[in-house]
């Protein structure tokens, strides 16, 4: 299905009649558009429609013969204690995870950007490594590292005379452990974007600041941070969108436990899908979608106002 349609007949291109131009344009765009509509745009719409029905796994072969239940699925969400728990966990994950990852990513970028030249590639590759590796493999290793008695983290803590807890087995520590792991896994990605942002800051700004006697911290505070604001906000949007959907970490590390302390909204959707409650799962996924759109709009507002300020 490659773009063969705009073949030999369109030799005169733009000078040809309108119809031919449309045919050529859609000839290039159609393969993508068809796949895109069938497998992405269509399902997005279908999901919305499903969320107003009582579609269950038994109806899969006949998805149009279901009852319309209006907003009942959405009302049910707020009576679902597990959903509320999952929403709170997800909020904590975003509120703690996004800043933690951004601070770590920025710190790594600043470190690599200041003077380290020869070994920069080695460091960049190393810090980026967790980003490109499969979460399943990461989970295999981390579950072992975090083991209460024999894990490497435990032996490191013993070196300084501490006794490590059962990180993933305690309901108050499992979520924080996953947050730290997510930060570890994603900071390399942010570091690369921050590095690009840092390198785009004109050197003369620093020279001027130095002439004015600005200290290192003052240069960071009054030159680096303001210049980096668009980058910060971009990274913030991407991290927020990603972390709102966090799911793979608890799936492979804790199965949502202990006591649902690491159950996330996406995980709950996945479970409801597994139980066959398709309509309900769709309603939940739409609520997540709305949350993502609202938070993104918030970030973009911030982005725009900050650009106005810096000009």
């Amino acid at each position, binding site marked *: 299905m490659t773009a063969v349609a705009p073949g030999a007949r369109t030799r005169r291109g733009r000078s040809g009649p309108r119809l031919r131009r449309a045919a050529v344009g*859609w*000839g*290039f765009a159609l393969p993508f558009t068809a796949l895109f509509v*069938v*497998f992405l745009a269509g399902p997005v719409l279908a999901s919305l429609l499903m969320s107003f029905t009582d579609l269950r796994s038994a109806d899969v072969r006949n998805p149009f013969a279901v009852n319309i239940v209006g907003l009942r699925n959405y009302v049910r969400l707020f009576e679902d204690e597990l959903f509320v728990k999952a929403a709170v966990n997800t909020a904590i994950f975003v509120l703690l995870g996004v800043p933690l990852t951004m601070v770590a990513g920025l710190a790594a970028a600043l470190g690599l950007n200041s003077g380290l030249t020869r070994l920069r590639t080695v460091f960049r590759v190393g810090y980026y490594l967790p980003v490109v*590796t499969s979460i399943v493999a990461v989970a295999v290793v981390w579950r072992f590292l975090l083991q209460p008695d024999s894990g490497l983290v435990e*032996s490191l803590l013993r070196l300084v005379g501490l006794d490590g807890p059962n990180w993933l087995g305690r309901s108050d520590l499992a979520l924080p452990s996953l947050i730290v792991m997510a930060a570890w896994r994603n900071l390399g990605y942010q570091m690369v974007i921050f590095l690009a942002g840092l390198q785009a800051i004109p050197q003369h700004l620093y020279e001027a600041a130095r002439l004015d006697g600005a200290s290192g911290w003052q240069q960071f505070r009054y030159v680096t941070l303001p210049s980096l604001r668009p980058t910060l906000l971009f990274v913030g949007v991407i991290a927020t969108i990603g972390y709102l959907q966090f799911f793979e970490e608890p799936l492979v590390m804790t199965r949502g436990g202990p006591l649902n302390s690491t159950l996330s909204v996406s995980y709950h959707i996945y479970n409801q899908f597994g139980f066959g409650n*398709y309509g309900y799962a769709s309603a939940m996924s739409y609520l997540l979608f709305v949350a993502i759109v609202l938070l993104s709009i918030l970030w973009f507002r911030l982005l725009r106002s900050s650009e106005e300020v810096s000009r």
Partner: protein
Amino acid sequence: MTTPATKARPPVAKPPGSPGGPARRPVRRRRDRVATVVLHVLLVAGLLAMVGPFLWMLLSSFKSEAEIRLVPATWWPEQFTLANYRELFGRLDFPTYFFNSALVATLVTLGNLVFCSAVGYALTKLRFPGRRALFGLVLGSVMVPSMVTFVPLFVLIANLGLTNTYAALVLPFLAGALGAFLMRQFMFSIPDELVESARVDGASELRIFVRIVLPLCRPALAALGILTFLAHWNSFIWPLVVATTEDKYTLPVALALYSVGQNQIKFGLLLAGSVVVVLPVVIVFIVLQRHFVRGIATTGLK
């Protein structure tokens, strides 16, 4: 690491503490050196924290099960053994999973390269009705969480009778919104005059696209190709749901299913399996990291 001889030179890129008034210079310089040492120590510690787990995984995959279980945990294998790998590729069906992962990731990557670059060409160099609407649709879908399409996609695949086929693993991902966005952004930087003059010379649009525009897009294609391949090599949730028999498992799915519950296999096998999942992408990443970093820095695509 900076040598002592360079200490007199002002720090290179963006010094945290830089020479102030001439009177205080010696103090500052010593403080700079301390700062540099501290910085390097921190960076190396960070590097160990990032790479250490993978290093341990690689080393331990050559240990016997008993040695892996030693308390306290050790780093260097006392006795190197390939037993884990032998079992992985002999008793377990890791060759099949490896093949499935490679096939799915390759097909998805090829699809995205072809379809996204074609639509990018249409969106930047051709005028046709519906162009703006199409771009709006693509842009609007970037924010859609994967869970939204999950259930309808599953229903669709089931109704098409495609459950547990390669088609189910590949088809839904052949045309990604981010890829289209990336190609469109890049093709904007290709001057329209180039395309126009080729048209005047009588070249067909297909010929212009293949012979002129695509070769100029090599950096964008490289970035898109690598990123798509990695994302789908590691892809996990969707294959976990639609691949229902072992002959269709991808590597992450097999590893996930073998790592918990009744199917759980020995830890050494899990570590060796993780190495098999991770090593190809690490090699690809190290070899191609220039394209990679450039692609990420310019698009934000992961």
